[in-house]
């Protein structure tokens, strides 16, 4: 397999398949990234097939089984593999369904802030002048607010709920992408290959998005994976403050917040959603690292 991939990495076949094989060859060199990817795919499968995998309804309350510990502990029950919470809801089912919300929040928030941030950042860095000044001052104003406070204000204006929380978080995260993109574009813009493309007749749009932008992607990918995890955390914080996902939605952050009072007495109610968030964030960060290595030709071995 690696033999075939190695030869295809330098083949003259430009087809999509060969490119994919080449990408995979470099991605697979990084074991952490592969583990992260496998776990991420596992999460995606969980999220998609949640109704078939979860043993119970995530919002059903079993009054005879309140705060049952996980099965391997004393008094654990086989019915509730990871125990139940304060109102008798099955933890495992809630965690499985929670995957949906967390991934949804991460994907939407990252996409929104990445796309908006890249567009604004490229324009600011490419045209400079007053366009740059206007965009960057607005971003500075957004950055001047404590991020969670601004998100809170936005949600208060838009009304509580998961979707509004996501929009608010995306807006709060956007300036980081704008700054990163602008800085990268400014340093790439004066390089000779950009001038060469200009001499070849490339227009503004082509120069911005086809010539310069691909060379600025590496820090953006890392920032995107980081903000994927921060988005999950911020959505959880908003849920905790009653402004994000509303109970009984089985969102991990909201679960964490609901279980706050049981930290010392019933560890599993707090620990399990926490572990879920931790492992997810870790997997995504590992994957992002590998992605950057595979997408950056400068790091490839010839």
């Amino acid at each position, binding site marked *: 397999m690696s033999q075939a991939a190695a030869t295809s990495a*330098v*083949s*003259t*076949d*430009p087809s999509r398949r060969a490119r994919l094989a080449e990408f995979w060859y470099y991605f697979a060199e990084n074991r952490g990234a592969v583990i992260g990817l496998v776990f991420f795919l596992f999460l995606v499968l969980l999220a998609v097939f949640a109704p078939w995998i979860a043993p119970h309804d995530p919002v059903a309350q079993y009054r005879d089984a309140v705060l049952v510990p996980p099965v391997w502990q004393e008094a654990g029950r086989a019915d509730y593999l990871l125990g139940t919470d304060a109102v008798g809801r099955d933890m495992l089912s809630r965690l499985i369904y929670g995957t949906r919300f967390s991934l949804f929040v991460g994907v939407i928030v990252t996409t929104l802030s990445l796309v908006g941030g890249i567009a604004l950042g490229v324009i600011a860095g490419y045209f400079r002048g007053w366009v740059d000044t206007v965009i960057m001052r607005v971003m500075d104003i957004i950055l001047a607010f404590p991020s969670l406070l601004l998100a809170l204000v936005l949600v208060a204006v838009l009304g509580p709920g998961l979707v509004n929380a996501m929009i608010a978080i995306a807006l709060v995260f956007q300036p980081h992408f704008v700054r990163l993109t602008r800085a990268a574009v400014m340093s790439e813009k004066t*390089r*000779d*290959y950009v*001038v*060469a*493309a*200009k*001499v*070849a*007749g*490339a*227009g503004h749009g*082509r120069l911005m998005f086809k*010539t310069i932008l*691909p*060379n600025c992607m590496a820090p953006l990918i890392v920032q995107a994976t980081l903000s994927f995890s921060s988005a999950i955390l911020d959505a959880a914080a908003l849920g905790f403050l009653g402004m994000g996902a509303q109970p009984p939605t089985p969102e991990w952050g909201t679960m964490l917040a609901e279980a706050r009072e049981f930290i010392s007495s019933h560890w599993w109610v707090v620990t399990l959603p926490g572990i879920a968030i931790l492992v997810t964030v870790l997997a995504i960060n590992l994957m992002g690292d590998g992605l950057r290595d595979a997408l950056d*030709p*400068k790091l*490839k071995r*010839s």
Partner: protein
Amino acid sequence: MSVILEARNLVRDYHIPGGLLKKAKTVHALKGVSFSVEQGKTLAIVGESGCGKSTLGRILTLIDPATSGELLIEGKKIDIAKGDMTPEMRRKVQIVFQNPYGSLNPRQKIGDILMEPLVINTDTPADERRDRAMTMLKKVGLTELHFNRYPHMFSGGQRQRIAIARALMLNPKLLVLDEPVSALDLSVQAQVLNLLADLQDEFKLTYVFISHDLSVVRYIADDVMVMYFGEAVEYGSRDEVFADPKHSYTKTLFAATPRADVASIKARLAKKRAA
């Protein structure tokens, strides 16, 4: 012989905006340079760093506008500040940069780099683009195998060949070479210079060769222009300039060129021993 490129009194000023504590000032990078180049000839522009060589190169390549003066390409006046920049004009002038490590997009495969000018300027079908890029790749001494590789997999000399191939994809009349060999080591310099000479014969190219290396200039140039602080202090045919330098700066420049032939080394050693 038809005149491909003519410059009349080109001036370029850079305005440095003042701040709170310093006054705004103007740097005169070019102070009225005139010359003309005939088809198939090579004009070498020589001078120390900061004398306006590259500024001139950028004006000739239509990247930056001149502050004043006229630039005529094939007898047609062109002023990019006024926006009379057509794709046809673009295709007539191309440039090869000094640093082969910065002039190729690291995200693009060699094939895409070569095909990009065709994609932008022409509506050649994909197959034909591919064929033409392949042909050009072979012409500059690389093989089909290199088509799908990235720039970082190549040495400096190979990259410069790729940059030359890219510049030639649109069949330009005029090629501005901005110190194309100064970043390369000597043996590779010779290879690239020979390649340039071959291509000039084959495509009837006109070169504007910017350099600070007099031995390279002596090898490749037909005409020589010596620049000093934004002015052309000497302009004439190669033999004229080399045999009988008139301006004091040109004389200093020639005197400063290290000589590496056996006789001069022996003379230098003898002098050293005597001292």
